[in-house]
Each structure stands twice: as structure tokens, then as C-alpha cells.
């Protein structure tokens, strides 16, 4: 049974430096409180895989120097503009970048979920995304006739990390329609989840809730972290904190402003 941790730091203990960490897109439940805790811990050399994009989470981790390799389809703050630390890190060469495209990341995690070494994907041919990915291979479709198709290798994260509305005491996690979280958990060696609250009762035994539940079988540790996605949204629970995002975009535009942001919102444990 998964550990219902006493603290965020206890739950996050398995996320060591150098690991391949998978995280979801902005609107699917991003573990932001956990992200701040990892930065406070001074984690280094992460290989971050976003499913399939990221916003504040990737930008913060990059700015704080936690990322060695980034594998993503896009990083941006959306309505709040470009992701400043991401852009700066790419321009300065501070991180190793693996540009992908959304369905490729989904397919690579699905390959790991299914225990197959690769998945095929249409598209990609003639794109420079493919040209810069020597780890992706083009073959002639054995069912076709002069029909090139790209094969993408399975991607197995060391750890998947996300935030969800609730978990029960057996560690079953309600993820609703955010089913990419299920794929992430199936694909990853270990899965760590922060939740808004503990649900009394068994999520798996309620026929309505079971459909949106990831079994505790796939989960290593859970920490309760109210408003744990803040300032990002949690679907059906709270929206994005627009004022905060605008403040971030403004501060993170310079290294000095970013350092100020960290002091104010990360190291002070304001939201941990």
C-alpha cells in the first residue's frame, strides 16, 4: 500500500537528483507545492519530461537550476507570455533540450505503459523535430508499400509527479478525466501524488468514482497538500491565479527578479 506521508518532503524523498521525472500539462493537476519543495531541497540534474507541455512548473525548475535535460512539446506561460527562464536557458545553452511534439510524448509513455519497445506515429516526416531526434527511427511500414513511418522508443520515467483532488486511505487517487495521469503512473517506475484532501471511503468501490480513479497499486507515496497546484489551476476545483502569474512573468523576466520571486514564494515556504 502506498505511504500516506506525514509531510511533503517525506513523500518526495524518492525524487533524487539526476532522475527522469514526468509531470503533466498545466491544466491537468500540476504538483506546484511539491515543485517548490524540490527547489528548496536543492535538487539537481533532473531530466524533466512534460506530458506534453508545461508552464510555470518547468520555468521555475529551470530558473532554479534543477534541470539538466528537458523533453517537451512546448513551455510557455500562455496568456501571460513566454516562459522567461526557459527561453533564457535555451539561449544560453544552460539546459539540454529535446524538442518533441505532443502526440509523440503521449505515444512514448503509452509504449512504456504497454511494455512494448516502441510505438509508431504518423506525421513527423520532413519535420526538423524528427531531424533533431536521433533516438526516433523511420522504417518502411511493413503493412504498406513505400510508406515511411516513425517509431518512437518507450519512455519510462523514474518518477511521475502530479496533483489530484483526493485520495482515499488505501492510496487510490481520483484523477477524473485527466487520464494522461493514469498513463504516466502506469509508465513510471514510481508515482508520487499530492492531493487536496483524503477521501473517507473506498474510491474503487464507488461505481461512479471508480471510473476516474487510479489504484493505489500504482502509487508509491501521497502527501496532502491543500491548494497544491497553486498558482496553477486544478480542474473543477480552482482556477489559475492570474495576478500571481502576471507577477511571475514580470519578475522572472530578469535573473534578479526571478531570485526575488524564489525568495518570496519558494524559500519562504509560503505555500508549502
Amino acid at each position: 500500500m502506498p505511504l500516506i506521508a506525514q509531510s511533503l518532503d517525506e513523500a518526495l524523498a524518492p525524487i533524487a537528483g539526476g532522475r527522469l521525472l514526468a509531470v503533466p500539462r498545466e491544466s491537468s493537476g500540476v504538483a506546484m507545492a511539491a515543485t517548490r519543495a524540490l527547489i528548496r531541497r536543492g535538487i539537481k540534474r533532473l531530466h524533466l519530461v512534460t506530458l506534453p507541455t508545461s508552464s510555470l512548473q518547468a520555468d521555475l525548475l529551470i530558473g532554479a537550476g534543477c534541470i539538466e535535460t528537458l523533453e517537451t512539446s512546448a513551455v510557455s506561460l500562455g496568456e501571460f507570455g513566454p516562459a522567461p527562464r526557459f527561453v533564457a536557458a535555451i539561449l544560453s545553452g544552460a539546459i539540454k533540450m529535446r524538442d518533441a511534439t505532443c502526440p509523440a510524448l503521449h505515444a512514448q509513455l503509452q509504449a512504456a505503459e504497454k511494455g512494448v519497445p516502441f510505438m509508431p506515429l504518423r506525421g513527423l516526416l520532413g519535420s526538423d523535430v524528427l531531424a533533431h531526434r536521433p533516438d526516433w527511427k523511420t522504417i518502411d511500414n511493413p503493412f504498406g508499400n513505400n510508406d515511411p513511418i516513425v517509431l518512437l522508443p518507450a519512455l519510462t520515467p523514474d518518477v511521475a509527479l502530479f496533483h489530484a483532488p483526493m485520495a482515499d486511505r488505501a492510496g487510490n487517487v481520483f484523477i477524473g478525466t485527466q487520464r494522461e495521469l493514469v498513463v504516466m503512473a502506469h509508465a513510471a517506475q514510481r508515482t508520487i501524488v499530492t492531493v487536496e484532501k483524503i477521501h473517507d471511503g473506498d474510491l474503487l468501490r464507488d461505481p461512479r468514482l471508480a471510473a476516474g480513479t487510479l489504484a493505489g497499486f500504482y502509487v508509491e507515496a501521497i502527501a496532502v497538500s491543500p491548494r497544491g497546484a497553486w498558482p496553477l489551476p486544478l480542474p473543477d476545483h480552482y482556477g489559475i491565479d492570474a495576478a500571481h502569474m502576471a507577477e511571475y512573468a514580470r519578475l522572472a523576466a530578469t535573473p534578479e527578479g526571478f531570485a526575488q520571486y524564489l525568495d518570496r514564494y519558494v524559500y519562504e515556504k509560503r505555500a508549502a
Partner: protein
Amino acid sequence: MGDTFRDEELLADVICRLIGDVRHVAVGAQSPIPATAALLAQARGGGSPYVSLLGSRAHTFFTDGARELFDCAGQGRVDVFFLSGGQIDSEGNINLVSVGDYAHPKARFPGSFGSAYLYYVVPKVILFRTEHSRRTLVPKVDFVSAPGGSPGNVYRSGGPIGLVTNRCLFDFDRARRRFRLASVHPGHGVAEVIDNTGFDFDRPTHVPVTPAPSAETLALLRTTVAPMLAEVYPEFVKRVFNVPAPSP
């Protein structure tokens, strides 16, 4: 307001016409004007087409996670999608990645998103870029996030049908992989379009003016569409339609 309208309203109206009579329009991230156009098409169609707005809870039928959009497109069930580019070139190639050498770029954009797949499999991809300049519309993109066309043996059921900018509408000729000026927006001119476009394109002898949105369209946009957009694009709706953002 009578005959006056905002640029965003004209562009939404233009895009809405390009959407045409289809079953399902999907709109990706950070696309407020295409989202406006898709919801306008739905409002005009009395609920049809289906519209999927990425990031919306109210305007989506997806329940299979973030991959469903791509699976749905792979099934041939996404009829229209929108793509943009930090650079777009004469052949319809789009660049969402970087300017200059990829290894040592001079500028970096967010990334390719789903373009390296959706551009190939969605029958009607509408390119959309408000900034119409020689910086954005270039002879050749520095990085091909997704190509405007593919060799005959490459599986490709989709591609660009046109490009909408703040100055004009281009059609795209897939066989020749070339843009053709279809209309210039009210207040803009052909010479201006030529001056501000970094690539060569075809044009008819007489280039029509893009029709202005009708009073009915403007009313639909302002009273029906704008409130629906506010969930995903609160800042946009506040700015363009003066509709207050919904409380979180």
C-alpha cells in the same frame, strides 16, 4: 456601435467562413481568435459543429485525457484545426521552435506543440498569425516544426488551407505549395501586403476586399460567443469585448 468592429471580430468572421460546413473544430492552446471563430460557427449552426477548446471544461467532450485530441485526429474525426508560427514561409512550413541555428538560437519560441502531427492529419488546417511582417512571413523558416506539404508517398490526409493575418487572407494551393492572396482586409491594400510579406505569393488581377462582419455576426459575437470564451480567455474577452472575467 453600428458598422464599427474590432480587428478581432473581422478575423473571427473570416476564419468562421474558412471553417465551412464540418462536424468538429478543435482549437489548441493560446488561440483566442480561432476559438472565437469556432464558437461563432457553432452559434450560427445552432450547436453544430462540435467545438473542442483546449483548456476548457465547458467546451470539450474529451474524457480520455490529453491524448484524446490526437487520437481523435488520427481517426479522421478532427475536421479543422489552427496552427500559427513564429515564422511561416512561402511553402506553408511553420516554425514554432527557434530563430537562427537550432543549436545556438537567436530567439526561442515555446515549441512545436502538436503541430508535427496535426498538420499532417487534419484536413483543414487554418494558419493564423496576426502579426503580418517580413519578420513572421519569411522566405524559408529556420526550423520546420511541420512542413506545409509532403512527398506523395508520405501519409498525409491534412494540411493548410489558408493563412489569416491582420492584413489579409491567403489561400493555400496544396499541389503547388504556394499561397495566393484571396482578399485584403478593409483599410489595408495589396501594395502594403506585398511590402510586408517576406515571401512571394500568387495574386489575381483584382484582389477583393474582405467583407466586413454583418450586424448579425457582430451581435452573435458580442452577446453569445464572448461570454462562452471568458472561461479560457478571460484577458482576451475583457480587452476585446469588455466582458468581465468570471470569478474563479
